[in-house]
């Protein structure tokens, strides 16, 4: 599909909007449907879309494997780190109420960062799975 000009142009136009929508779903998750998981999936989907149109090698250049693997790990680290910050600020583990000057703001801040962690890990895992499957060659299946 690399030669199909219509698909290539449409893809290049659409992908920024897909990422923007992912960010909307991410940050609006507090007030409406959405959140880190959904946003992470949309981010991954936009990259998968890129891979379908422009091929796997180009995608691997755009988002290298090591970045994907780091994303998988750092999301968990962000989430667990929010919990540890709760301890450092004098609360219990995963205590949101102490994260800001008053409990409601603290809650917002805690959930914000936790959802960031979720989005990073989910999109990383989705891409990792995609890369693993897409990277397999047919002859390996039979061997």
């Amino acid at each position, binding site marked *: 599909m690399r030669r199909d000009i219509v698909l290539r142009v449409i893809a290049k136009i659409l992908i920024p909007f897909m990422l923007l929508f992912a960010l909307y779903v991410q940050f609006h998750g507090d007030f409406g449907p959405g959140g880190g998981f959904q946003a992470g999936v949309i981010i991954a989907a936009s990259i998968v879309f890129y891979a379908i149109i422009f091929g796997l090698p180009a995608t691997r250049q755009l988002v290298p494997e090591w970045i994907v693997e780091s994303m*998988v*790990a750092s999301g968990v680290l962000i989430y667990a780190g929010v*919990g540890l910050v709760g301890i450092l600020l004098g609360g*219990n*583990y995963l205590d949101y109420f102490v994260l800001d000057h008053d409990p409601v703001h603290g809650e917002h801040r805690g959930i914000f960062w936790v959802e960031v962690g979720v989005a990073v890990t989910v999109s990383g895992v989705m891409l990792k799975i995609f890369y693993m499957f897409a990277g397999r060659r047919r002859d390996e299946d039979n061997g």
Partner: protein
Amino acid sequence: MSGLLDHLPALQVVLPLISAPLIVLVRRQRFAWLLTVAVSWISLAIAIALFVKVGQTGVISYAIGSWPPPWGIEYRVDALNAYVLVLVSLVAAVVAPYARISIAAELPREQEYLLFAMFCLCLTGLLGITITGDVFNVFVFLEISSLSTYVMIALGQRRKALVAAYQYLVMGTIGATFYVIGIGLLYLMTGTLNIADLAERLRDVKEIRPLLAAYAFITVGIGLKLALFPLHQWLPNAYTFAPSMVTAFLSATATKVSVYVLLRFYFTVFGASILFEGLPTADVLLALSVAGMVTASLVAVFQDDLKRMFAYSSVSQIAYITLGISLANEAGLTASIVHLLNHGITKGAIFLLIGGIALRCGVVSFDRLRGIGQRMPLTSFGLVISGLSLIGIPGTAGFVTKWYLVVAAIDRGYWWLVAVIVGSSLIAVAYVWRFVEVAYLSEPDERSVKRGEAPASMLGFAWVLVIGSLYFGFDTSFSVGGAREAAALLLGGAR
């Protein structure tokens, strides 16, 4: 600093949890190993601190996110799970430093750090299951430990490891699903997931049928995870094909933690309700345990692979633990709980030593091990001592368990059971003797190259557990003392 001490229950789980992603981020084999060792030793220190603190001040309750217990997730440490925490982190603290050479020999270099990350996650899961006071949180940690376990088994050298991991994945997923169905029913009837609160509210539940279903689902689900006799099919393959250090870690901890969950449900959650009486649970469990003790031991005698033989032996040893639960008196529960530790240490030692043999000889089938007693004297001697502990020779940890089991059986008036316990120990003599015969009484294999003893770091840490299995045969103040306290706690909560 005293502030940090209040957070020990959370840190017990969180430290291994954050070290896993750190290992993946840094991607260095050396760092991965060092961090794993550090975190497993810190975990052991925390577990011991918690054990001591529980002994002094009683139950520790920790509210995650500062949400008060029946609503939020509570971490609750009492005499029983403090004991199990010490066991799990102790085994991890021995296995982690052992792993460096063993893993370097058995895995491709680029996969080593991933195995250590999985090891940390598995440790997180097992410690989490043990420490949490929330039944759904148990499920979450059960999944964390199970998923990481599947990966670790699949990393085994031979291709059959993939099949073994897949087999365990299917069985383990069924187990976890049944468990969730069970707690779903309990939630339906009581509206709570907190263990202490559940026990409280189940007393007032009049409708018995959903509870019965929950009880059945949870028993079968956890029975799958702990390899209760007819549900043990996944275990021999998983143990045989996993990397050596993984087998040692799993055999010493994973099934034991599942037993802990079963104990929790039987005695803390269900014990308080009218459900437990009038049901033939004890008889069924007794029959399955007896069948497991005898059958699995017999199967073990006829195995050609050393690792596989001891895997079947694990099934029969787990049956001793469930036997103690089915007797449901103080001596029986003490035997079960103390056997968590005794068998964990003994079997951990055995699989660590076998890891040394695997490193030197490649395969661990009996026809390749002839005369191993001359070539690897310390390893073979350690295996024989641990084997004696499996049999239950006086002076070893295994004897202590058998003693309490026999006392419990006599308390119940089951004299025939005493004969079965002694009989299955005799079968254990048969399979341990097979190793002795091959190792000491046959001529060394001429074809195989003369090779020396396992590396000092592997042998040393394996021997820590061998000596442990002897030590707990003589000084039972920690092992039996802690177990008896836990048994009293369970029975006190029950009736």
